[in-house]
């Protein structure tokens, strides 16, 4: 009780820094359960597929998708395909094996070097970027063909950070018909991966597309995922740039993320068609994907 003449106690609302480390933290149990439901519904109820096929790169995204599919569909219904190129980091192949062994899923290894080199032999001036894109597209040729071979649906593994930063090969990594990670930032992928006890070697290593020797995602971007994800979260939620600057984000980080976000809207869409009628598909003729 306050004594007469004593000032009243003051209780203040808890303030939380905008870049709090738990900003994007999920309830991993709830999220995992929902993603498993999503996989079962989209594969079995809607499409009648019993089996899934996943390109296992050795990275955390495809490993997490394999874990989710094994939980949702049973390990006997998951096929992992490792698709190394001759310059791929051998560690990637080993980490892919770690995933398939831990889960007890069927594993196949298909070396894409002959098909990639067959094309690139006549393209002597192809730089690292072009070569990387050819590899990503070759992997999708393989994955979709294996899908036919095993009557298994290809499952996408691209995360929300990659999608927003445009860090993928168009009509390649993004082409599988369903993807459980597409609304998860990379930092959330790591959180779920730790919750599901994926091998530490895979979760703790720097993320890499492994298209060029020594490549890492964060070196390619010039910003850590932890920071980029927070900035993306606020930009997508409608906070203006000057709000971010007032709340401790640096101008260079915000500019970098915004430039990548603004410059890649096209990558998150299908092709642009010339509209000539009032029955133009997706403009006038609107039907949902599952109609």
């Amino acid at each position: 009780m306050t004594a007469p003449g004593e000032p009243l106690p003051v209780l203040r609302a808890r303030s939380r820094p905008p870049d709090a480390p738990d900003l994007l933290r999920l309830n991993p149990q709830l999220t995992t359960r929902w993603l498993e439901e999503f996989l079962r519904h989209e594969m079995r109820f809607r499409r009648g597929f019993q089996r899934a096929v996943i390109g296992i790169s050795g990275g955390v995204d495809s490993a997490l998708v394999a874990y989710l599919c094994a939980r949702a569909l049973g390990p006997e219904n998951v096929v992992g395909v490792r698709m190394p190129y001759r310059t791929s980091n051998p560690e990637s192949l080993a980490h892919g094996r770690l995933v398939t062994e831990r889960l007890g899923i069927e594993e196949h290894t298909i070396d894409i070097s002959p098909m990639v080199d067959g094309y690139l032999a006549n393209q002597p001036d192809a730089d690292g970027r072009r070569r990387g894109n050819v590899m990503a597209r070759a992997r999708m040729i393989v994955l979709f063909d294996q899908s036919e071979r095993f009557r298994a649906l290809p499952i996408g593994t691209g995360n929300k950070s990659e999608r927003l930063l445009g860090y993928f090969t168009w009509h390649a990594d993004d082409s599988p018909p369903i993807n459980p990670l597409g609304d998860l930032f990379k930092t959330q992928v790591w959180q779920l991966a730790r919750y599901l006890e994926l091998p530490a070697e895979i979760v703790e290593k720097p993320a890499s597309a492994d298209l060029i020797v020594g490549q890492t995602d964060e070196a390619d971007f010039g910003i850590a995922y932890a920071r980029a994800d927070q900035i993306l979260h606020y930009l997508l939620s409608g906070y203006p740039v000057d709000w971010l600057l007032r709340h401790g984000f640096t101008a260079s980080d915000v500019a970098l993320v915004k430039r990548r976000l603004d410059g890649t809207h096209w990558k998150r869409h299908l092709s642009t068609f010339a509209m000539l009628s009032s029955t133009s598909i997706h403009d006038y003729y609107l039907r949902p994907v599952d109609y």
Partner: protein
Amino acid sequence: MEWHVAVAQLRPKKGDYGYALGHLGETLGQLDGANEPLDVLVLPEMALTGYFLQGGIAEVARSTEQFFAELTALFRQATRAGRPPIDIVVGFPERRESRLFNSVLYATLSHRQEESRIHHVHRKIFLPTYGVFDEKRYVNRGRGLAPFETRAGLAGMLICEDAWHTITGTILALGGARIVYIPVASPARGFEGEVVANVGRWHRLAQSMAEEHAIFVVTANLVGFEGGKGFIGGSVIVNPLGEILVEGPMGEECLIRATLDLEEIAIARAGLPLLGDLESQLPDLVHALAQAAEPHPEGPRS
């Protein structure tokens, strides 16, 4: 009076009306065989077609009369000839003359022609058109909101966002509704907390409406995924004290059942006569409301 309620959290196949009728027939058969009294079966918004239809709504919409005839035929096929009637609350895409609506039908299904009847159709007033929702593009908004007579006395119906505005529940309660039925289609968002954010929001909404007006509130939430968007389920039956009597699981098909003791409305109102207080203050508030709704020369003040 006891009123026996069941809610079916159903998972439709998008646009596959035949599948949905078959599934509803199985559900009616299950309820008929359960040897428990049942007075009303409550189904979600767009329960038989799926929610995100875009332009496809014009292909699956039907008139109330056609829909009622289909449901009656299904009921007679799926249940024993001697069984008592079942009232049904079900969301459907309605074609009414040249217009489309997001509607909910309240009807009595019976083997006896003289008992079978359409009681009411509520057409969704608040059509969400933001974020993932795009309803105004495809359907017309409903204009009316009123309670209607049922075998359990006056009842009201709201559809999804209709219930997010406290004024709608208030209007129904002031009009005498003792039970408000709310078919819902709510895709899950917000996985940070103990429960999905909009599951919690729906429970709070239903409980607040029930407790404020001392009425029963029944929500029926769609389940299943549509293009990656998963509907939450988590339907509830709430008593006039604002207590959840039974709650459906998140995202899974199920039936939830409760027996409502309609005497509890008077008991709750004796303890907390908020609705009576509101009635007595209403003339002043209606005046204040009219003033607040007056157009402002500089545009909306909110």
